[in-house]
Each structure stands twice: as structure tokens, then as C-alpha cells.
């Protein structure tokens, strides 16, 4: 990370010229990564919000990690375009001279909203857990322990677990769950708009909004599975995160991949049938030109192959599913690159007599280092978080156990009652006959 920081300072001092970007490809790895990170961030909140709304009991142990992933990848996703700016020192201009007509402004607004929302979404269910930590933490004399205790106390916001507090928390959670879904959808829609609002072949497309949202969900939910598996291994949560969770999440990813595949078909098949001039050049390059190898590897490897694997119950067992998810996540990243770069290399005006490095693009070490630094940052924040806070919503799991218990008790009671009733029926088996008479 310090290497990445060094690279960034190098870039700040010497300009974006130290990257491989030039006038034709003026957006490169940074913007692709931005789109990818924002995509991953959909995972969380959306997965856990949808599962919460549909009252899926099995969601309980995984919501926290999904929400955390959202929070962190959004944080770093937001940093990417700032790294990409030529004049980050003038960032205040966005406030001073901001124009709401600009798609970039829509991005900023909706990402900020989403960031606040998902922070709340992460924080709210943590309150009772914080109280729990506060009450349970043993204060030794080390500073760190003291600090932890202090932090827990602050973050618990004076939670004592009274009925009215529970009631309020539940209400707020219900509202947040509903509000966050349109916000999350809007975020990736407007991210796609920074491309779709231009006239460029390949971007000038009406399915870009849903296409990006589907891509985000597909990569995001795969990310959640990976996170889930990692925590399960690290903290030995096999008891809580079971094979059933993997199976169900696998089904979810399968469904999302199918939607994504369908949109992919729309995105490429419609222009490919018509082969209009501008689009035609781009598509030829993708189908059998410079980018064809990556393009087809992506289509088969990270869309069709996962569908095939996940269609079988065996493909939804942890090992295979995790491999599939790694493929999906990496595939989604490369796919962003394939959306951004080839289009920029196919402008309407022919590329003629320009310096050699203008007409090609491959990210160089500065871009790779900074991007890797951001990725490392994501892991760092997650690890720090896991050190400080419970990675599962303890109360939610408890509540789940309680509900399960209640359900079992209820079944027991019902069974008993049924048995009793049957017995009664048996006792008065002659009554009906009398009644007939």
C-alpha cells in the first residue's frame, strides 16, 4: 500500500502522463476498476436487503459480511475516479461550480447517498451487538482494550435492550431495507450513464442501465460468497454458515448470472445483427479482432461456464462454488475493462498518424500498483473490522435460533394438539352417526 501511495504521489507530481492513458484511451484501468468496485458494492446491501425483505431465514449469518463488503468497496470505488482526476486539487470545484446536468454529478450524488445509506445499514444492526460487546468485554489495563470498550460504549448509543428500543430499531431497519434497494439500483444505473450518455459506438445503448445493474449483482453476490467462505474458514463458523447457505447463495448467483447472460445477449446480438458502421468496427474487433480472445474467454468462461457449473447441486458445494465465484469476480473486472477500453479505441474519426502509444492501451505499472493498493486497502479495512467487531450479527442469529426454536415448539404443540384432537375424535366416533340419524 505504501508503494501504491508512492506511485500516486509520483502521478500527482508528474501528471497522468505517467500512466499508459493517452488521448484516445483517456479512461483506462482506473475507471474500469471504479465500475467494478461499485459493482461489488451492490452485493452486500442488495443481497442482504432483498433477503431481509423476503424474510429468508438463512440470510442471518451472512448479512453482516455482505454489508461490510458493500461499505468497503464503495469507499474504495469512490476513491478511484478521484485518482483518475487530472486536477484532484480542484475537487472543491464540484461543490462550487457543480452542474446537476452532468452524469458525473449524478454519480457523485447517488454514490454519496448510497454510501451514507449502506453505512447506516451496516451500523444499525450492529447497535445491539455493540451493547453486547460493551457488556461482555473485560477491561484489562491495556490501552487498546480500553479504547475498544470506549468505542463499543459510544457505538452502542446507550442501547439497553428495552422493548421500545427494539421496536424502534426494527422500524428503522424496515424502512432502510426498503429505501436502500432503489438507491442501490440507481447507483449502478447512473454509473452506466457516464458511458451511455455519450454517442460512442458500444456505449450508446439503451440497455446499459439494467446491464450494469445485472453485472453488479452477479459479481457482487459472487463476492459475498467468497467473503462468506473466507470468514467461515478463518473463524470456524461452520456451525452457522452451513452447506445449505452455499447451496442457496449458489442458486441466487445462478439466477443472477442467467439474467446477466440474457442482457449480454441483448447488448451484443442486437447491434451484431445490424452491423451499423461505427458499432460494426467495434464488434468486429471484439468478435474476431484484437480483443476477441479476451471477449470470448469472458463470455464462455465467466458467464456460460459458471451457469453450467452452478446448475448442478454438486457445483453449489463450497469448493466448486468458490472457484466459480473467483472466476466470476475476475471475469467481471476484466469485462469492465472490455467495456471501457475498446470503445475508446474506436472513435468516429479514424485514428491516423498519431504517436504509437496513443493508439494502443495496456495499463502500466503505475496504474497496476495504485489499483492493487486500493484492493489491498479493501482487505485491510475488512481485516481491521473483523478484529474489532463481530462478523456475524449475533442478535440476528440468536433471533433466528429463537424463531427456529419457537417454530419447533409450535410444531410440537400443534402435533400434540392434533394428537389430542384425533384422540377426541376417536372417542366420539359414534357421534356423527347419531347425528345422521
Amino acid at each position: 500500500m505504501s508503494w501504491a501511495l508512492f506511485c500516486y504521489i509520483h502521478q500527482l507530481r508528474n501528471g497522468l502522463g505517467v500512466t499508459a492513458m493517452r488521448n484516445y484511451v483517456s479512461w483506462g484501468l482506473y475507471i474500469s476498476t471504479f465500475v467494478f468496485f461499485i459493482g461489488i458494492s451492490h452485493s452486500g446491501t442488495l443481497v442482504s436487503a432483498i433477503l431481509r425483505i423476503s424474510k429468508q431465514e438463512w440470510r442471518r449469518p451472512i448479512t453482516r459480511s455482505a454489508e461490510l463488503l458493500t461499505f468497503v468497496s464503495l469507499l474504495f470505488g469512490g476513491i478511484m475516479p478521484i485518482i483518475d482526476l487530472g486536477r484532484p486539487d480542484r475537487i472543491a470545484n464540484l461543490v462550487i461550480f457543480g452542474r446537476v446536468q452532468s452524469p458525473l454529478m449524478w454519480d457523485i450524488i447517488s454514490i454519496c447517498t448510497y454510501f451514507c445509506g449502506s453505512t447506516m445499514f451496516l451500523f444499525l444492526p450492529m447497535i445491539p451487538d455493540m451493547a453486547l460487546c460493551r457488556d461482555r468485554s473485560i477491561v484489562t489495563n491495556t490501552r487498546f482494550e480500553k479504547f475498544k470498550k470506549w468505542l463499543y460504549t459510544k457505538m452502542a448509543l446507550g442501547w439497553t435492550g428495552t422493548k421500545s428500543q427494539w421496536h424502534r430499531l426494527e422500524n428503522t431497519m424496515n424502512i432502510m431495507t426498503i429505501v436502500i434497494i432503489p438507491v442501490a439500483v440507481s447507483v449502478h444505473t447512473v454509473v452506466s450513464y457516464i458511458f451511455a450518455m455519450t454517442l460512442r459506438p458500444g456505449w450508446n445503448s439503451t440497455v446499459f442501465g439494467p446491464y450494469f445493474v445485472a453485472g453488479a449483482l452477479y459479481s457482487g453476490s459472487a463476492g459475498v460468497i467468497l467473503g462468506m467462505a473466507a470468514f467461515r474458514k478463518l473463524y470456524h463458523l461452520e456451525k452457522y454458515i452451513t452447506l445449505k447457505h452455499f447451496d442457496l447463495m449458489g442458486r441466487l448467483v445462478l439466477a443472477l448470472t442467467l439474467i446477466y447472460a440474457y442482457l449480454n445477449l441483448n447488448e451484443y446480438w442486437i447491434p451484431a445483427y445490424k452491423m451499423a458502421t461505427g458499432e460494426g468496427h467495434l464488434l468486429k474487433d471484439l468478435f474476431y479482432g484484437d480483443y476477441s480472445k479476451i471477449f470470448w474467454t469472458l463470455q464462455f468462461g465467466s458467464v456460460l461456464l459458471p451457469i453450467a457449473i452452478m446448475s448442478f447441486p454438486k457445483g453449489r458445494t463450497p469448493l466448486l462454488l468458490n472457484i466459480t465465484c473467483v472466476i466470476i469476480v475476475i471475469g467481471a473486472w476484466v469485462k469492465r475493462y472490455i467495456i471501457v477500453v475498446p470503445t475508446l479505441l474506436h472513435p468516429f474519426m479514424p485514428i491516423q498518424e498519431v504517436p504509437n502509444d496513443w493508439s494502443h492501451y495496456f495499463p502500466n505499472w503505475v496504474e497496476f500498483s495504485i489499483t492493487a493498493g486500493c484492493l489491498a486497502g479493501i482487505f485491510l479495512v475488512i481485516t481491521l473490522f473483523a478484529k474489532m467487531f463481530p462478523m456475524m450479527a449475533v442478535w440476528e442469529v440468536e433471533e433466528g435460533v429463537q424463531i427456529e426454536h419457537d417454530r419447533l415448539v409450535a410444531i410440537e404443540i400443534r402435533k400434540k394438539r392434533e394428537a389430542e384432537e384425533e384422540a377426541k375424535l376417536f372417542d366420539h366416533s359414534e357421534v356423527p352417526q347419531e347425528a345422521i340419524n
Partner: protein
Amino acid sequence: MKEENKSNRRNFLKLGLITGGTIATGALVFEKVISKNDVATSTADTIVCGPDGKVYKADPMHLKELHAPPVSMDEARLGIEGKKFVMVIDEAKCDGCKKCTEACQKMHYTESDREWIKVFKMKDAETTSPYFFPKPCFHCDNPPCTKVCPVNATFKRQDGIVLIDNTRCIGCRSCMVACPYSTRFFNWSEPSVQQSQEVAGMQYSPEQSIPRKMGTVEKCDFCPDMIRQGKLPACVSGCPMDALYFGDQNEDAVTNSSGLTVKLSHLLEDNAGYRHLEELGTEPRVYYLPPKNRKYPKPDLNHNEDEKEKGVKPMDMI
């Protein structure tokens, strides 16, 4: 050689050239940067008056137009009232000599890789004839570039010109990806030492686009500072073939480098004027006249080998 050049440049002396007749009015001012050596050895008989009041001899080749003192930022954003500037480019006359590009680069102190007006060799289809296609910024009336700018750093003025304020631009490059004509250039690095020396001390205005700043965008500006002085943009006056016309749509008149002023509507009507990629709806303010009855050899398409290799077809496009 290079060393020598450098030291020569350091000795640059700023001189204003005032030809005999204009001393009285002082209206026509040229600026030139020549070295002392030039003064001593120049065989040219142009008399120039230095800022120090002394009189020098100078080679006209070394003279540069002086940028007028910049107007205020507000004026630069508003534009010139009552005007609607247009350019007409006659493909039938352009022989691809690139003098327009050179004149532009000299005027705006650009590095050689920045061609604000770039001469393309176009060929619309396999069977159609190739032609030269000089392309400045089109100063579109429905500009995709200004629409996407988050900070209003690039803007459309009332006289139709699209400019960039590089003191405000944050370098997001949205405008570059939005422009369908690859018109915009980004300052990826600091301007070269030589260039910053040449423009040192000049006051910035969006109307003259210099001094440039790292991390901001630049492009063809239609030379508004020249227009304000009643002159033609550098490319138009630099075209030896009279292929470029510039003027005011409201007056319905355009002028080329030899001073010929014609009626815009007649010019377009008689020559079947069109605009490039009309179907994109950007409403360019630059018109083209088709390459009919050319008096010069058609473009040689064969030295674009490297582009062909890349799979980028050099000539064609919509």
C-alpha cells in the same frame, strides 16, 4: 546543435513589430520572439520596434501574431454579442499540405503531437474517392462535451464558440469521451520547458487557451482573441489553398485567407455543403463542401500501413 538552440532561446528578446504605416494608429501589433543573433545577421528588411523602443531588423519568418490583451473571464464566457461564427471547409481545394495545422500550432504554442486542426485522409467506402479532411473543433450547437462537464469548465457561448476554462477544469475527461470527433486533448504532463518559456508571463484567458496547465483539457478555440481584433483564425489565414472560410452566420458572410468574402448561404447552396456525421445530432458549426473537381492529386492512402495492421481502418467511417 541542440545546446546552441537552447542558449539562443534563452536570449530571446521580445519585440513588437510596427510597420511604418501603423505607428500612428498602433492598432496592428505583432509580437516576435527573435534572438539577438537574428537581429545581427538577418538579411530581411522588416523593421521591428522592440518593447524597449529601439528599432531592430527581423526576418518576417520569425514573427508571431501578438495575442490581444485577454478579456475578462466573464466576457470570455459570454462571447461576442450578435455573432454566430461558422467555418466552411472546401474539400475540393484542400490538398493536404497541413499549413493550417502548422499555423495553429504556432499561434497556440502547441507541441507537435497536438493537432487542434488535423488533416485526415478520408475514404468513405472501398469504391469511393479519397479526399483530405481538415477537422477543427466543430463548436457544435448541441455539444455533447459541454453537457457532461460536471463543473461547467467547458461551455457554449452566445456567439456559438465552445471554450474551456483551464483554471476550472478538474481533468475528469468526461468531455473527451463525450466528443464524437476526438477533438479534445489532455495535458497529461507539464508543458515542455521550451513551451512554458515561450508563453511565460502571458495572462491566461479561455479565449487564447494559453498558458496551458497540466491535468486540464484543451482544444481548438476558433481563435476568439483574433476575432475580437477583426482577424481570421490562424488556420484560416494560414491556408495557402483558400480552402478554409470563416465568418458570421448572422451576416451570412464568410472570408478566406486571400480576403475573398462570399455569401455563406450561396456557398453552401452552390457546392452542396454538408456537415460531418449529421446523424449524430450534434449540430456542428463547421460545414464541408464535397471534394468535387479537384485540381491536385488525391491523397496517397498507402502510407498508413501501421494503422491497417492495428485493425483500425484508416480511411473509412460512416
